[in-house]
């Protein structure tokens, strides 16, 4: 197992850094009075991020009346939380558009799962007026980034992992730890730590399948819940599926009343579907 862990950590080193431009922009967005001209100056030098950002907002459910063609035009129309959300989403695409054979996901499904979780996180954060919306969006969009690294290793042991889930009643994450010595949440958190993301974002990624950790704070609870709802709807549901436990306190810590859960599922699905359909329609090919 030590040998496997060594290989996993070697693989971690091969993942490209999160774009410096985006990290700088996110830092600027911590200030509610950020100057949007300055923000645009930082982002526009990265053509990929700029193009992805504009494509996403033109595809989104936010009801823009006309096509937005520049960053400054976009910033004038969006709220600060929406800017954060679409900025991270614009960067996440480059990591999350890859086949994950071990988890049984096509690049398209990996990307949809990330977007779906982000959409649910945004909706829940809005409903409960969450304090740390910036951490929530980033963690929700990147929560499965560790699967990128573990995929190869999970693929080789998938049968053993699934048998542990089926026969021993372990969660998929517990089975990953038993077989590989680590799990995709830990690996994802480590990647975010190396990239310099804030502690609360790292914690939420680390906690998204851990039933004790996910109820430690609202950010972690909302991120874990967003992932669960995305999986309940089958959106980019990987081989791990629903092989997890849900702690009884989750909704309370997230700030949601039981009776509102189904309305969130319905509304979130509409938002996601809208975004997906528009992204497909605006896809370059």
């Amino acid at each position: 197992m030590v040998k496997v862990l060594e290989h996993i950590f070697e693989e971690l080193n091969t993942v490209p850094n999160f774009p410096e431009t985006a990290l700088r922009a996110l830092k600027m967005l911590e200030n509610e009075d950020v100057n949007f001209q300055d923000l645009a100056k930082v982002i526009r030098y990265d053509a990929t991020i700029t193009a992805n950002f504009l494509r996403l907002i033109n595809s989104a459910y936010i009801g823009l009346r006309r096509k937005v063609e520049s960053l400054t035009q976009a910033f004038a129309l969006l709220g600060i939380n929406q800017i954060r959300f679409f900025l991270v989403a614009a960067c996440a695409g480059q990591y999350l558009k890859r086949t994950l054979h071990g988890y049984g996901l096509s690049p398209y499904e990996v990307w949809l799962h990330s977007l779906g979780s982000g959409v649910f996180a945004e909706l829940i954060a809005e409903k409960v007026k969450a304090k740390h919306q910036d951490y929530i969006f980033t963690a929700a969009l990147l929560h499965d980034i560790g699967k990128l690294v573990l995929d190869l290793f999970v693929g080789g042991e998938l049968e053993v992992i699934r048998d542990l889930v089926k026969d021993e009643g372990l969660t998929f994450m517990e089975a990953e730890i038993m077989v590989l010595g680590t799990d995709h949440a830990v690996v994802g958190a480590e990647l975010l730590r190396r990239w310099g993301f804030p502690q609360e974002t790292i914690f939420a990624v680390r906690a998204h399948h851990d039933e004790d950790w996910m109820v430690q704070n609202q950010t972690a609870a909302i991120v874990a819940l967003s992932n669960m709802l995305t999986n309940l709807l089958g959106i980019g549901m990987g081989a791990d599926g629903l092989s997890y436990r849900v702690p009884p306190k989750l909704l309370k810590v997230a700030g949601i009343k039981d009776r509102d859960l189904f309305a969130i599922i319905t509304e979130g699905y509409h938002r996601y579907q809208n975004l997906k359909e528009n992204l497909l329609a605006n896809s370059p090919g």
Partner: protein
Amino acid sequence: MIVEKGRFQVVKKGGETLETETLGSCVALAARDREAEVYGLWVFVLPALKILPHRVPNTPDAFFANEGIDEFLAELETQGAVLERTEFYSVGGARFLEAPTIFDLGGLNASMIRKLLKDRKLKLAKEKCGRPFPCRLIINPVSDEIIFKISGEEEEKW
């Protein structure tokens, strides 16, 4: 043709293949009347509209088992199916290993469709619901096959 969640499609023999996306806790109900050569596929998300505190705008009835079933059955009949001899198959309804009841959407959806069919004296030929793993269903109206795929296992043909 992908049948999205909250939608249904009915085709005749030789028509386009009908396929679900990954189902999660949603349930797909497949219908086949071999004599009339009619095939239908419906994917619903929630058991009933009344579990929502308020109706979410633009949500079709087919999003809910209770509200969508009669519309689906009516479309099958319009296409020539005779419901009494039609075989129904329900799949999906994934469930967490352990969760508070409110998260057991898969269990709720599976039992709701069982009840709704029973109330209408219709037969459920097979049910494959409740596993935690992702699954899909495909109906091939050319080969007359209904194919059930669950991640990591051999597909089943009915």
